[in-house]
């Protein structure tokens, strides 16, 4: 059989999930056909226009409306608005035959088996042999959908469970039926990861599959614990949020976002369909939840749930929380737990978890109860929902944003230690855990030779996680391959002559420590290695320069020191480009300010698709001072051709920095000029990013990398551009769109981008522009309003527009 190639995808059903799944396929460059039903009757607008049920606009109304709403929604489902034209819209009656051209048909219609069956019957009529068909169901057994289908359909059919919003939520559960071709399962696990950027998790065809089964158990069992322990809503959210490496929305706020009705629906489904679940009672709905559903307090969608936003008499809004005893909303209490206070002082999550679990306070009690409940439950889910334990961790982590999965947390706490406690308190554990320990294995995972292994229950041995054999994973290398380290950064040997520099300063900001580390990494690489990758596993690639350091020098009026520090920053950025080894920067999430400037000086950027890049220095009252302004002038010069209307291209570049535009995706970073087409790359899979970045560095080495020569041929516009800068800044200020200080910063930026007030278009050097940029930066730091902006960012994390 020839290789499967996905070129075109048909998505059946354009609801919230369907439309957004279609968008994500468009994101990765596929042609997409999105279909929905034909409306039964005309609406008022259509009647007014004298349209009939035969008009195309009426026939496609449902899909048109749903798709329009989706592409307008936030967070944006498309990497770039331009990608919308990759999706063609139609209806089941007129366009279903077009699925013959699709390589994959995804069903995302309403969750009713009878309706799904009708859809599949129609699909069978038009699909070509070998076409993949999948259902996005979250609760209907995949097996039950096979009835009446052909053999070719059955072998090419499986469940593909995306989570909302599909662009952003990492999880994709792959659920084969008993008839699914095993080759297809392997293909989908790989395709979902490499092409769609998802964490693909193989799940058995059991109720709620993996993530929802465990996640909903965790919430439901917690509902009961909370009641027993008499904890408040805000207490629980404090206990189960970031301190545990889980999302800020923690437990109850997550419920509000998901919708209590949805949660109850899934819980009831499990209770009904899993008669042998040993914790069936946990899925019973507590009375306060029942009351909330009856009152329609479902969360965000109905305006109130566990929390309720109200406007006080003073016009200020306040978020009240529900008192679970009185079932009335009240002002939130200040939450204080000794255990949390202790844990906050620790960076390492495993260590944090240990402290929380072992602390003797109410918080500790809570953790001991909920963790052991969870451990017990997941131990019994093998082999019911998965044969391998890592799939449960992967599912929960990717589906609910936990940094540690249940088995990983258990590992962190010590498997046998916890097991002993569980036995003491009479909590059951599946026999395989005891067998594991009896065989002398005290952890579910271990790292060997840079690979992470999991405990394989049937063979009682450790095995590599399938699909990760050839991956470069920083977490697996850190312990044994660290070459150099300071407080803010670590240099790790990735093998094959490539070093990795990872930041771990606060928010991964760039300050003295990281600057030092960048230079050290380049030094080391030039001396003993072949290339360098800058990549990290933090929440964000880098939030920018360390403004605290700049503020200190500015406020002390140590301008010479400040000038020196900025110069060092610039020199370091220049070294990133002008060294004897290739430097590849691999970004993810926020890459702002200095983080963006670092990327702009790389030989190549391998940006994760979810990279939010931007030069946002205006927000703190300065212009990009680490070569960002220089680089924009350089790129402007390179993009101008003879006869272009230079001033307009100049304006585009000027406004990108002047409006602190942040790309909302890697693709948009190209559109805004932060990334270079033909040089930089976007990769959809975060999991594969470092492997690709290392390979890219090696490719540059193989091609014969030589140190580039600093540019001296940058054409700047001089006075030709300055006039429009002054007019624009004055007009924006006069129109009250920007402040007087913004006007000043704009003029300084314009001056740098124009290369100063030269009388004619002139070729200048990078050094010349860096000097202009630095001078402007330091001058702005001497302004009171810039200090106020810096201070606001440091103390409140907020952009002050003064």
């Amino acid at each position, binding site marked *: 059989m020839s290789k499967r190639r996905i070129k075109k995808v048909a998505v059946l059903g354009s609801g919230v999930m369907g439309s957004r799944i279609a968008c994500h396929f468009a994101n990765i460059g596929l042609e997409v056909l999105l279909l929905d039903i034909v409306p039964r009757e005309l609406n008022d607008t259509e009647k007014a226009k004298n349209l009939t049920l035969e008009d195309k606009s009426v026939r496609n109304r449902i899909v048109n409306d749903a798709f329009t709403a989706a592409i307008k929604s936030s967070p944006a489902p498309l990497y770039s608005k331009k990608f919308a034209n990759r999706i063609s819209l139609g209806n089941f009656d007129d366009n279903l035959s077009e699925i013959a051209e699709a390589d994959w048909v995804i069903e995302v219609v309403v969750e009713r088996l009878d309706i799904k069956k009708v859809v599949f019957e129609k699909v069978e009529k038009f699909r070509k042999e070998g076409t993949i068909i999948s259902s996005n169901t979250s609760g209907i057994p995949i097996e039950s959908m096979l009835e009446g289908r052909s053999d070719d359909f059955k072998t090419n059919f499986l469940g593909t469970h995306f989570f909302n919003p599909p662009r952003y939520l990492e999880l994709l559960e792959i659920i084969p039926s008993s008839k699914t071709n095993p080759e297809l399962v392997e293909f989908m696990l790989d395709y979902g990861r490499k092409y769609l950027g998802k964490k693909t998790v193989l799940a058995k065809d059991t109720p709620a599959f993996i993530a929802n089964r465990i996640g909903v158990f965790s919430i439901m069992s917690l509902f009961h614990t909370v009641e027993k322990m008499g904890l408040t809503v805000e207490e629980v959210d404090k206990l189960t949020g970031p301190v545990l490496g889980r999302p800020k929305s923690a437990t109850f706020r997550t419920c509000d976002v998901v919708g209590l009705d949805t949660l109850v629906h899934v819980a009831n489904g499990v209770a009904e369909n899993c008669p042998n679940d040993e914790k069936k009672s946990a899925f019973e709905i507590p009375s306060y939840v029942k009351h909330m559903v009856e009152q329609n307090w479902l969360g965000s969608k109905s305006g109130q749930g566990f929390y309720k936003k109200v406007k006080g008499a003073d016009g200020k809004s306040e978020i009240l929380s529900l008192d679970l005893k009185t079932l009335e909303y009240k002002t939130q209490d200040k939450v204080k737990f000794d255990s949390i206070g202790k844990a906050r002082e620790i960076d390492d999550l495993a260590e944090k978890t240990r402290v929380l679990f072992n602390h003797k306070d109410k918080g500790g009690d809570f953790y001991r109860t909920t963790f052991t409940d969870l451990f017990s439950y997941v131990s019994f889910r093998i082999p019911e929902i998965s044969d391998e334990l890592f799939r449960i961790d992967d599912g929960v982590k990717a589906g609910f944003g936990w940094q540690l999965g249940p088995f990983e947390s258990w590992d962190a706490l010590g498997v046998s230690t916890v097991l002993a406690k569980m036995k003491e308190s009479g909590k059951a554990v599946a026999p395989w855990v005891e067998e594991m320990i009896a065989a002398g294995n005290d952890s579910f995972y271990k790292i060997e030779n840079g690979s992470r292994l999991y405990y394989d229950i049937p063979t009682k041995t450790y095995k590599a996680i399938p699909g990760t054999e050839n991956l470069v994973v920083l977490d697996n290398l850190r312990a044994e391959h660290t070459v150099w380290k300071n407080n803010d950064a670590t240099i790790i040997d990735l093998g094959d002559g490539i070093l990795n520099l990872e930041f771990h300063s606060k928010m991964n900001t760039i300050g003295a420590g990281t600057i030092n580390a960048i230079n050290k990494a380049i030094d080391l690489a030039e001396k003993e290695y072949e290339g360098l990758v800058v990549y990290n596993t933090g929440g964000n690639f880098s939030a920018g320069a360390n403004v605290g350091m700049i503020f200190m020098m500015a406020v002390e009026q140590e301008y010479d020191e400040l000038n020196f520090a900025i110069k060092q920053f610039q020199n370091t950025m220049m070294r990133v480009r002008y060294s004897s080894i290739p430097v590849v920067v691999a970004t993810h999430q926020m890459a702002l300010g200095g983080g963006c400037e670092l990327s702009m000086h790389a030989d190549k950027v391998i940006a994760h698709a979810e990279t939010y890049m931007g030069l946002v220095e205006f927000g703190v009252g300065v212009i990009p001072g680490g070569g960002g302004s220089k680089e924009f002038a350089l790129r402007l010069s390179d993009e101008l051709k003879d006869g272009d*209307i230079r*001033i*307009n291209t100049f304006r585009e570049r000027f406004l990108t920095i002047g409006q602190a535009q942040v790309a909302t995706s890697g693709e948009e970073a190209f559109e805004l000029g932060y990334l270079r087409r033909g040089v930089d790359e976007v990769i959809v899979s975060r999991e594969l990013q470092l492997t690709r970045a290392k390979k890219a560095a090696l490719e540059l080495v193989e091609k014969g990398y030589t140190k580039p020569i600093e540019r001296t041929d940058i054409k700047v516009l001089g*006075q*030709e551009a*300055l*006039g*429009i*800068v*002054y*007019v624009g800044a*004055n*007009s924006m200020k*006069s*129109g*009250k*769109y920007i402040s007087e200080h913004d006007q000043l910063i704009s003029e300084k930026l314009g001056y740098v981008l124009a290369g100063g*007030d030269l009388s004619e278009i002139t070729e200048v050097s990078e050094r010349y522009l860096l000097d202009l940029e630095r001078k402007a930066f330091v001058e702005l730091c001497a302004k009171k309003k810039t200090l106020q902006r810096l201070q606001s960012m440091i103390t409140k994390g907020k952009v002050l527009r003064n």
Partner: protein
Amino acid sequence: MNTYIVAGYRTAVGKSGRGSLRFTRPDDLAANVIQHLMNQNPSITPQEIDDVIVGNATPEAEQGLNIGRLVSLMGLNSIDVPGMTVNRYCSSGLETIAIADSKIKNGMGNLIIAGGVESMSPIAMGGWRIVPNAKVAKENPTYYWGMGLTAEEVANKFNVSREDQDQFAFESHMKALKANENGTFKDDIVPIQVEQVYLDENGKRQTRSYTFDQDEGPRAGTSVEALARLRPVFAQGGSVTAGNSSQTSDGAAFVMVASEEMVKRHNLKPIARMVSYAAAGVDPSIMGIGPVKAIPLALKQAGLKLSDIDLIELNEAFASQSLAVIRELDLNPEILNVNGGAISLGHPLGCTGAKLSVQIFNELKRRNKKYGMVTMCVGTGQGAAGIFEML
């Protein structure tokens, strides 16, 4: 020497960008009107015309290369008649009539075609390459302010409320709609045959043609409430919106100015004569107030009082400046913009002066009145006013 306006026509005004005239270039638009002028006076030969003077506010790109000369060649189908382009922004089309009039009065010609054209569809406001003098921009930024910002400044300085502006805009639409309905502009308008070449749904080349002969700016569905909902577009917390500003438009208008000798030679019927024309400078930051200075000058030249004027066309660049001018000079709203103005009918910059002149001739004729005044504010702090007497 006496001078006479013996004919005048305009195109209907199209909305810029998405309107009906966007497929017709400005040179073609202007040539069409000139051909129509000639067709209406068949005894006149092109060789008898001394000059073609074309007002244009953005003489570049499609309007570049001295569009005045090109329009002469295209419209008259003769190499013998020269042509020039005149730019005083929004009064260009009135300025050209004044130039023609003066030339003839001074014996520099007997018959001149004058007017203006502007296609705002293909050309960005202000032009494609705006390069202000950096030093001046720093010292006197208001010289380069956008017109919208000056409208805000006028609203602030002369206390023109948002409500009054929206009401004024609404009335402009109502008057224009009524005029359209009554066919008031029929005598003004030269129908334009538009040819469009496009690709159909299947990517096949297709052509279509249609006649455009009615102003498309007036909005039947508008209301004061709808106008009140629009957001200010030139200043944060401002009052000037897309709804109470003039529309950007495509259009052309030309008149024929003749000497006494020429009138006699061809037995032409004089319509009107230009009594006076004046332009004046004001503070560029309150550009819209320009007519307040220009109108008294024009009246003084003419030896007339404001009360002598029977009809006024005050270009509605913005409701804010229109109202400020009306209030400052105590203009009579009953005789002002009786068929709507630029807010509803559109404002093809360089054409507007000639277009308003054509409109005022026909309206004065309908009313059987004598004196009409065309006035407007002009970019970078100017105003202009011209007074005509019907014959």
